[in-house]
């Protein structure tokens, strides 16, 4: 559709310019726009994908929730009174109150901030580590690749949850900033391997391409080839993996907080609320279901978003 519009627009322009227009102009009209870039192609696909829009809307919604929670609820999540324990939904609190007598909905809304912060920072850090390691290993190959691949194997050999537990036990501080940074750091140093492997394999594929050989024959150095030719071609799969990883980092943070070693009160986290909701599920299920739904939808949104972007960027699947 958009093609048609561009062509129509340029035809109009050409018509308006008339015979006094540039000599080359009429010829260009016949060509349906200039050759689109890979990103342009992907964007055209994405625009038509409802899953992309739904997940993007959810991501925007959660981000807004994390930034300005006051927009979504007027209640204070820390205003708890035991007198209201497990009180049902009312005009004041649409999902009722939990075991401690706190507003279930307000707590879930305020829980978005910590989760999103941890997810985004971990994904960023992971991306940096993965790009550097994957590029170096994939491009230089030989013993560097062997060493880095072994390092990846070793890190992959450590069960993530277990190592995170062991590492986080070392953090004794109760300051919420310290704990958030600790969780970010732990998730990043344990979680970069998958992305690094993806980068490595796409770098190896890109390295064998003719355009890299051409660049090398033209005298380009390693740095230039890596930066100008290989990085742009291995970035797309990395971004997809990282979007999905962001979702799983949010899930991992909630899991750690659920176990009682990630974030701790007074920080509000979905994981903590799910754990306390689970303990009291026989009395009232809403304090379990509401934060669970928030968490699941958020993780889902990021995974769906990554999935949609991958489908758009991977021409093989089209």
């Amino acid at each position, binding site marked *: 559709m958009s093609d048609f519009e561009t062509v129509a627009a340029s035809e109009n322009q050409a018509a308006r310019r008339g015979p006094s227009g540039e000599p080359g102009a009429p010829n260009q009209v016949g060509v349906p726009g200039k050759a689109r870039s890979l990103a342009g192609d992907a964007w055209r696909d994405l625009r038509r994908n409802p899953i992309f829009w739904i997940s993007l809307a959810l991501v925007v919604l959660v981000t807004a929730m994390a930034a300005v929670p006051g927009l979504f609820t007027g209640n204070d999540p820390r205003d708890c009174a035991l007198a209201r324990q497990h009180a049902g939904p009312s005009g004041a609190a649409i999902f009722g109150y939990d075991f401690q007598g706190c507003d279930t909905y307000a707590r879930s809304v305020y829980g978005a901030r910590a989760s999103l912060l941890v997810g985004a920072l971990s994904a960023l850090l992971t991306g940096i580590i993965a790009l550097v390691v994957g590029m170096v290993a994939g491009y230089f190959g030989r013993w560097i690749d062997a060493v880095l691949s072994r390092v990846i194997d070793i890190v992959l050999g450590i069960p993530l949850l277990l190592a995170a537990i062991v590492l986080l036990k070392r953090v004794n501080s109760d300051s919420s900033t310290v704990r958030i940074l600790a969780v970010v750091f732990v998730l990043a140093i344990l979680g970069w391997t998958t992305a690094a492997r993806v980068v490595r394999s796409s770098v190896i594929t890109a390295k064998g391409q003719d355009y890299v050989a051409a660049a090398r024959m033209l005298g380009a150095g390693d740095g230039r080839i890596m930066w100008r030719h290989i990085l742009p071609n291995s970035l797309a799969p990395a971004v997809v993996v990282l979007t999905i990883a962001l979702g799983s980092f949010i899930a991992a943070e909630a*899991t750690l907080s659920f176990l009682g070693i990630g974030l701790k009160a007074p920080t509000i986290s979905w994981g903590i609320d799910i754990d306390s909701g*689970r303990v009291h599920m026989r009395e009232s299920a809403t304090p379990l279901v509401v934060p669970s739904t928030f968490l699941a939808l958020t993780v889902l949104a990021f995974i769906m978003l990554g999935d949609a972007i991958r489908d758009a960027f991977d021409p093989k699947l089209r």
Partner: protein
Amino acid sequence: MFRFVVRRLLQMVLAFFGTTLIVYALMFAGQGDPIQALAGERPVTEAQRAYLTEKYNLDRTGVGGFFYRYFDYVGNLLRGDLGESLTGRSIGEILTTAWPVTLKLALIAMAVTIVVGVTAGVVAGMRRASIFDNSTLLLTLLVLGIPTIVLAPLAQYLLGVKWQVFPPTAGAQPSLYALLLPGIVLGSLSLATALRLTRTSVAENLRADYVRTAKSKGLLRRRIVSVHVLRNSLIPVVTFLGVELGNLMSGAIITEGVFNIPGVGFNLFRGIRTEDGPLVVGIVSVLVVVYLVANLLVDVLYAVLDPRIRYE
């Protein structure tokens, strides 16, 4: 092939030392005063302290002492002696009781993954963009997007407490039926990944040149799919399943915790909470070996399944 296996074994040894060293260092550095951790709130007498220091070689300080204890520990591990937990129970014994439970759980999860995931993946891959394909894609997305800490308590609440289809917790001697729900919960995650992997792989292979050749030779579609496409498509799936089995064996801490299943993951979590360093390090090292061996087998299997792969 032989050279490849030998090289892979050497890499495995390296990975084993690297991983055990890291895990041991983390536990060792994170422990504070292990003797006080053992005693809890109670005071420790000098004699007890001296005995424990002697027993666990705690008198050697600094880097030398650390490596002394590390090699001591690895030596014991290689002799099959996993030592005792701080509570005095033999770790080997703990694992012997816990392992069958975890294995049973992992096998149930694996069976669910293979039977439902791979089968549905093949069908979805053959009928891309059909209603079946689209609905399975959406369903797997949902499953992938729901973390275990949501899935396990919700399944427990709905099926165990509310509708009472399954027992909500497993208990000390879990029957197969009691493990079914946790197994399905555990398997659902790998199910979704296996399904998508199979689907993509089948769909890609169906467009390969050799399929066209087979078709033009006049082979039956059934034969093309079951012999040519399936063998090639299942390569990444087999890799994934092997790695996943390693993961499942390493214990589903959350699932075993929520459903109260006395498996490896459950013991592990208890060990961490009670600062039981030897127990955690013992279990983790065994799990690491399991994981590494699973990876090795997967790699060898990979080479057997896919002759296009050359390891040199």
